[in-house]
């Protein structure tokens, strides 16, 4: 078992710890790799053009958070506390943004509010290129993440508390303030930090619609790609790590407390019909749902007409990717390959890793370090990880540099980038299993791997499917993690979107982004069918 921990541990070290360490070191070096102490940082903070990005980043992040979290909370309240119709449909609609790259809302906003936009007048002369556009795009992107967290928190509601409040003749608003809100407070805090971190580290939206408004994420990109100033790129990355790590730590602390809240035995809450309230909630969900769908719809529409909004004649010309600035159709197939590889290899690595952390006996220090490394990627923005990979895998002295610009390194990077959520999902599933399975097997003189294969894997299969689809969808949409390390032969669909947008082929960019969307929808549906089939097959031994 120690051997297995060692092997996967080594993977985490090579794919995460060493690159990050090297990046920290780079931020302290000059252009000829000599040690210069904090000189780079001093230069960064004494260059207003650079350091003002910190304020910009914080500004858009806070604004996006303040808008997204209440919107998501109300939406979650509608889904869980009202009896409005089509709740399942509205939940599905709200999750659509997860399936598209974060570049897509930027493109759609350009069509809606750009210089030739339909709704340009609604901005009263302000430009969509800049903080307004970034915030709008980020609200779209982060809405489902906030919603899922708040939904989970509201699902814990205890019906007895509501009954007690009603019996004490509390009014609806009073019940909201004294029961609903306190019950969901950890969820709200968690959602706040998740949204904040996502926005601070997001690269796609500010790249497409940020215009001249610099934020930390685009600065890293500009320093590295535009000016080839890797040291300064490392400095900005380290600065970008600070809020992400801080938010991550607060979130972990809060989640730990929420677990304690869960342990009490609660009676699930069942809302009763309240015509007026249900109607208002329905209206609200319709508005939000339309807003979310309109972003996707406008992208698809613009992709199939000649020149939106002037010439609305239908055409497939924008799908002729091979004639455009990006990587052509090849990049789309590369993305599919990456997503499949990431999903298969990633699920195996993540699940076996989580199993070792949870079920191995002894070797506590090794398992502790392993768990820490598994949790770390959550706090590391994709751009930072990508830049760290340049430093580590492009170094001539590193025997692993044969991997540079190959599909393998993209897979390694993407697995690492999305490792934590998969790890936590697997841990949750493993913790629901009787801890004595391994003991019983040992008493029956069976090797641990036999129990793993015969019992653990079959019982955890639904969770492993969840990890696989999560890895697949994210591998399709990610930009930030891979933008520094793709090669001429390994350009991806999401990168193509970025590059076609750069060369002004926005309609093709939107078309490619929508290809990613449809692929993800297809993958999701396949996942659903598989999960259903699995459920039917294992119904006999599953309770409920």
């Amino acid at each position, binding site marked *: 078992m120690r051997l297995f921990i060692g092997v996967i541990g080594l993977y985490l070290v090579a794919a995460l710890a060493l690159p990050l360490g090297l990046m920290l070191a780079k931020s302290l070096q000059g252009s000829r790799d000599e040690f210069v102490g904090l000189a780079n940082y001093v230069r960064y903070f004494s260059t207003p053009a650079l350091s003002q990005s910190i304020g910009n980043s914080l500004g858009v992040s806070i604004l996006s958070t303040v808008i997204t979290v209440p919107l998501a909370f109300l939406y979650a309240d509608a889904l869980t506390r009202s009896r409005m119709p089509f709740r399942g449909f509205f939940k599905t609609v709200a999750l659509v943004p997860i399936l598209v790259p974060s570049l897509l809302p930027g493109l759609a906003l350009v069509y809606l509010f750009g210089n030739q936009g339909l709704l340009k007048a609604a901005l009263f002369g302000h430009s969509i290129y800049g903080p307004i556009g970034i915030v709008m795009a980020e609200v779209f992107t982060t809405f489902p993440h906030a919603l899922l967290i708040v939904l989970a928190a509201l699902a814990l509601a205890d019906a007895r508390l509501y009954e007690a409040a009603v019996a004490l003749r509390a009014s609806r608003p009073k019940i909201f303030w004294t029961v609903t809100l306190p019950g969901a407070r950890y969820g709200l805090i968690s959602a706040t930090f998740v949204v904040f971190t996502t926005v601070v580290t997001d690269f796609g939206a500010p790249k497409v619609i940020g215009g001249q408004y610099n934020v930390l994420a685009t600065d890293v990109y500009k320093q590295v790609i535009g000016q080839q100033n890797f040291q300064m790129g490392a400095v900005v990355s380290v600065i970008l790590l600070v809020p992400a790590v801080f938010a991550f730590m607060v979130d972990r602390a809060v989640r730990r407390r929420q677990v304690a809240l869960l342990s009490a035995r609660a009676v699930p809450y069942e809302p009763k019909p309240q015509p007026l309230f249900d109607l208002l909630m329905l209206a609200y969900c319709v508005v939000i749902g339309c807003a979310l769908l309109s972003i996707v719809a406008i992208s698809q529409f613009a992709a199939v007409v000649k020149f939106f909004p002037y010439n609305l004649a239908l055409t497939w010309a924008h799908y002729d990717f091979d004639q455009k600035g990006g990587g052509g159709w090849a990049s789309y197939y590369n993305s599919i390959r990456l997503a499949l590889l990431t999903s298969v290899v990633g699920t195996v690595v993540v699940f076996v890793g989580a199993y070792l952390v949870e079920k191995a006996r002894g070797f506590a220090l090794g398992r502790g370090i392993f768990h820490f490394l598994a949790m770390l990627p959550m706090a590391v923005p994709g751009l930072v990880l990508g830049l760290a990979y340049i430093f580590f895998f492009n170094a001539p002295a590193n025997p692993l540099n044969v991997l540079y610009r190959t599909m393998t390194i993209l897979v390694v990077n993407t697995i690492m980038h999305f490792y934590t959520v998969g790890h936590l999902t697997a841990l949750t599933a493993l913790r629901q299993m009787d801890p004595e399975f391994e003991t*019983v097997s040992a008493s029956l003189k069976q090797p641990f791997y036999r129990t793993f294969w015969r*019992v653990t894997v079959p019982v955890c299969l639904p969770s492993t499917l969840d990890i696989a689809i999560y890895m697949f969808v994210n591998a399709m949409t990610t930009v930030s993690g891979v933008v520094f390390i793709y090669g001429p032969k390994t350009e991806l669909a999401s990168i193509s979107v970025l590059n076609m947008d750069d060369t002004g082929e926005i309609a093709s960019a939107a078309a490619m982004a929508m290809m990613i969307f449809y692929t993800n929808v297809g993958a999701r549906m396949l996942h659903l069918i598989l999960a259903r089939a699995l459920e039917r097959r294992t119904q006999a031994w599953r309770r409920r």
Partner: protein
Amino acid sequence: MGKALRREVGAEEVGRTVTTPYLRISRLTKTFGAFTALDDISLEIVEGEFVCFLGPSGCGKTTLLRAIAGLDIQTTGRIEQNGRDISALPPTKRDFGIVFQSYALFPNLTAARNVAYGLENTRMPRGELVKRVHELLDLMGLAQHGNKYPAQLSGGQQQRVALARALATSPGLLLLDEPLSALDAKVRVHLRHEIRALQRRLGVTTIMVTHDQEEALTMADRIVVMNAGAIEQVGTPLEIYREPASPFVADFIGVMNFVAGTVVRDGAVRLGRSELACDVEGLAAGTEVTLAIRPEDIVVHDGGRSESNALTVRVDALVFLGSFFRADLAGDAAAGVLLRADLPADMVRRRRITEKSTLSVLLPPERIRIYPRSPVNR
């Protein structure tokens, strides 16, 4: 150590031929940081014996079981099984079958596959394996349930599958970790008898951990009463009940009256204003002691003054408990102390005893146990 002596006497009183013990635990200690979970435990178990580890939660009984299984290796000490030193062996190298409170049945395998689990991967031919599984399921009365999954079985049935699985490999030692506590009362009582009968039939040496004294009293050949990581007493159920070695055991097993008194001379103890005859176990006059007597041992009598150990008491409260009444007795003679007595229902009716009645009760000398009073034990 006095305890060690008592233990050996106890083993002989069971009436077994004294052989080399099957399991010998010597000077076992287990610490978790500053906390001592097992404190110098020594114990011997002979082949075919059914032994219960009994004690309140946190007393170390489960830790001891897990040390025997090799799941949590002891800090110091030695365990020998069948003459073999197994102290440092991992669970896979030891010879035992185990059943947990949660059963830990593999949910995705049928009852039959669960039972077969430990037999697969051995060199046992397929046909023999199938036969053995059938045998075991038959033995447990589960013949027609072999193809069901654990979730489709009742708690009692699941428990029996777990037992069959543990016994499938014919282990020399069967370990049961609170096997009945997840079941409801009726099934529990039924399974007690079943497990006991099965153990007798197979003759497998068995250790069961439980916090349920009734379970231990009805099932065990010998009971090991544990408290705070140490063994308080080892003995047959009858010994443990009749002659508890310490106030802890007396209090933990059954119901016991405790009354403060003082040794007057050899064979007599002062209790309030009365003097009671009893065995003072060599304690010197003037020693502060605790008297202990079980409620059912207090006898109502006709009040002949000549009777020794008689007390005049008033009935403060009378609670009907089916076959008997539990009476709270108080009296000047007993210096304000309260005694509980279990009075047979028909006797209470015959004598027309009610609350506020005045009675004369006997405390039979041979039923009184005394313990030196320490500030810790009440």
